[in-house]
């Protein structure tokens, strides 16, 4: 990895060490707990699917039936029901959707349950491994055809069938990654809707069927364009592990999956989020899914110059949480953003400093770089230029995943033409400065180099404070994104469950083993 900033390895190591110490007590909490959505995710991995007439998903029906028993793990009861009824998974799902209550069945032989459960684990593992192998084969087959950084666009019509048109058009125009934005506030639903959907606000429901439809649509384009097209969706929220599970099953390639985003930006309870993120990330790790973290969000509420160090600190934490969940660096799309006030003199230099710094500190991570959003205005012509400079910095500092800025950012979710304009902008800039990064050296002690050193130093200091305070306390005090989140408030706390002594989850065990984690 090129080194232009001469950052001190000692300070970087120090930050990593601090992150480890900060995360450690949280991990202790995590391993002792499960949540309703962890249990539902486990059920989904086993095959639980479908919904009742009111649209309540089967995994929710099951978990609702198991009030008080969840501390043992929901999978025990689901597998027990399979054995007891002699049904197939599909048959059982149907029965449950029709009202069959599995919580009331007497528990059968533990060993038999374990045997049957392991069968399901194997089936799941095979399916996900097949997905992973398919992705890797296609990436190999179409090597060198993607842009670097990857061009990432969103579709957000609310209607999966309109989304398909937009996604295919974008992929045809050169997009490497298509993210289907979720409908406003889906992250606050404590269930995952079922089936294909056509009604959403500012985004489309994340459902397994929608995943499937979009995957098939993009697979078509892949063959036509002879280029792999990554499919992305959003996990973070009250159903983080379930969406990760669905993504693993339907061969999504990336997943928004932050360890703290839900707490800060969605007011989800922190205990809940910490537990959920771990299981969801284990699934993503196993499925070869790249996670994207949400540090960019800090800068939508705080100032990008003043608070640059909180972004870096959060990257260290997200990295640590990810490692604890078995994610290798190459699957860590750590987030940051080009959110500086465009009126700042030398703003470009500061952006270059921060982006290059992230690049050098996390050399193996496919950094996710977010475009200007906060300072975009209705002046679409100015917006084009802001996006052009963003494209420039991203290419120049070798980012990994490049979220395309839209000239209409301040106006509406992207029109089909907006996306095309954005792709043209980025492709032109990238090609025009193709090898610039390798051409340029920074003046020692210049503005850029100094800025990077300063941000790293501030991040270390910040992490030291957090370490002293404790992560949860720090979040209570509003250290991140200037938002205070009391630990026993926020959505979804009632879905937190302390694992009982009998807690059983062979899927979790399998993942722990596969990922080489300590139990």
């Amino acid at each position: 990895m090129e080194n232009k900033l001469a950052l001190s390895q000692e300070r970087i190591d120090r930050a990593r060490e601090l992150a480890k110490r900060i995360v450690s007590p949280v991990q202790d909490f995590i391993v002792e707990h499960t949540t309703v959505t962890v249990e539902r995710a486990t059920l989904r991995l086993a095959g639980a699917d479908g919904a009742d007439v009111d649209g309540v998903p089967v995994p929710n029906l099951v978990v609702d039936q198991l009030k008080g028993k969840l501390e043992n793990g929901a999978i025990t009861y689901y597998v027990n029901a399979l054995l007891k009824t002699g049904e197939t998974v599909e048959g059982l799902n149907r029965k449950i959707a029709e009202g069959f209550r599995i919580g009331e069945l007497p528990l059968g032989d533990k060993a038999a349950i374990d045997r049957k459960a392991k069968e399901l684990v194997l089936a799941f593992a095979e399916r996900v491994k097949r997905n992973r192998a398919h992705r890797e084969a296609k990436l190999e087959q179409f090597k060198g055809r993607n842009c670097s950084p990857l061009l990432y666009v969103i579709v957000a019509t609310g209607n999966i069938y309109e989304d398909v048109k937009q996604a295919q058009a974008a992929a045809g125009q050169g997009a490497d990654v298509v993210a289907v934005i979720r409908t406003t506030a889906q992250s606050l639903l404590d269930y995952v809707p079922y089936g294909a959907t056509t009604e959403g606000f500012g985004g489309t429901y994340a459902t397994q069927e929608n995943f499937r439809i979009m995957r098939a649509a993009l697979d078509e384009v892949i063959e036509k364009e002879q280029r792999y097209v990554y499919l992305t969706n959003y996990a973070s929220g009250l159903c983080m592990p379930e969406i990760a599970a669905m993504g693993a099953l339907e061969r999504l390639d990336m997943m928004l999956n932050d360890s703290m985003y839900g707490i800060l930006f969605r007011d989800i309870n922190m205990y809940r989020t910490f537990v959920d993120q771990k299981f969801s990330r284990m699934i993503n790790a196993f499925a070869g899914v790249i996670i994207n973290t949400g540090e960019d969000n800090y800068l939508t509420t705080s100032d990008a110059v003043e608070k640059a160090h909180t972004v870096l600190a959060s990257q260290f934490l997200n990295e640590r949480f990810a490692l604890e969940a078995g994610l290798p660096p190459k699957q860590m799309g750590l987030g940051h953003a080009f959110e500086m006030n465009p009126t700042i003199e030398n703003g470009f230099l500061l952006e270059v400093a921060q982006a290059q710094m992230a690049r050098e500190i996390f050399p193996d991570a496919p950094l996710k770089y977010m475009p200007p959003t906060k300072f975009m205005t209705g002046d679409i012509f100015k917006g084009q230029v802001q996006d052009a400079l963003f494209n420039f910095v991203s290419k120049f500092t070798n980012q990994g995943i490049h979220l395309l800025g839209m000239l209409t950012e301040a106006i509406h979710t992207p029109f089909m033409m907006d996306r095309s304009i954005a792709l043209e902008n980025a492709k032109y800039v990238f090609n025009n400065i193709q090898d610039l990064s390798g051409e340029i050296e920074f003046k020692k002690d210049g503005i850029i180099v100094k800025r990077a050193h300063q941000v790293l130093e501030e991040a270390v200091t910040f992490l030291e404070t957090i370490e002293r305070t404790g992560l949860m306390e720090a979040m209570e005090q509003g250290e991140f994104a200037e938002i205070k989140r009391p630990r026993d408030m926020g959505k979804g706390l009632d879905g937190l469950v302390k694992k009982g002594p009998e807690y059983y989850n062979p899927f979790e065990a399998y993942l722990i083993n596969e990922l080489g984690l300590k139990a």
Partner: protein
Amino acid sequence: MIVRPYGDTLDDGAVQLSFTLPVPDGPRGREAARLFVEKLGFKHAEVVHSHALSEGFSFYVAYGKTEIGIDFDTVHVEEAVGEKVYGMYEACDVIKEKLGRKVVVVGACTGFDAHTVGIDAIMNMKGYNHHYGLERYHEIEAYNLGAQVPNEKLIEFAEKVKADAILISQIVTQKDVHIQNMTEFIELLQAKGLREKFIVCAGGTRIGNKLAVELGYDAGFGKGTYADHVATYIIDRLIERKTAR
């Protein structure tokens, strides 16, 4: 005075347009685009660029010249606040002097909307662009309930603290979700017989005084609003009401 768009000569009527058509790119698409622009009332329409977005969609940039104009003399806008806007200290002085009691304001980002930056800009201590927020006003008691607050809860809270004014922020406007949500809020207030009890203001990037008033609000505030504007509006209305009684 009739005013028309201006390119480089008075009344040339020059306008730039861009749009997508659900047809393949090519001469026929370009001709359709040109005819479309003409149909909008442009005498002279030129498609200066087109490219394919996919097999069935294409993008057009066009310039047109029109004789259509607007009689500027008949254009009136009723902004919530006029020329005279109180600064923070002035506002507090006026409250003390003319109302003689603290003013209570409750605000929230309602429905599913989680864009708090706007309402925070109006209410938080820190304020926005060197304009302090309402929380910093000595004579105002300000409660900012934050994001995604259900209409029902907001009304409850406003009753509880005996609010003078309720501030609603709506940023997401896709599929007119803000209109639904804002309408629901007013209907709820009316159903409870509370409409007259509060000064009700709405705000947000795409919200103007006109829209808000149409939806039954007392006033609406768009882009570029500061706490000063809302405070001025609320104070003047309260003084009016007091005098009227």
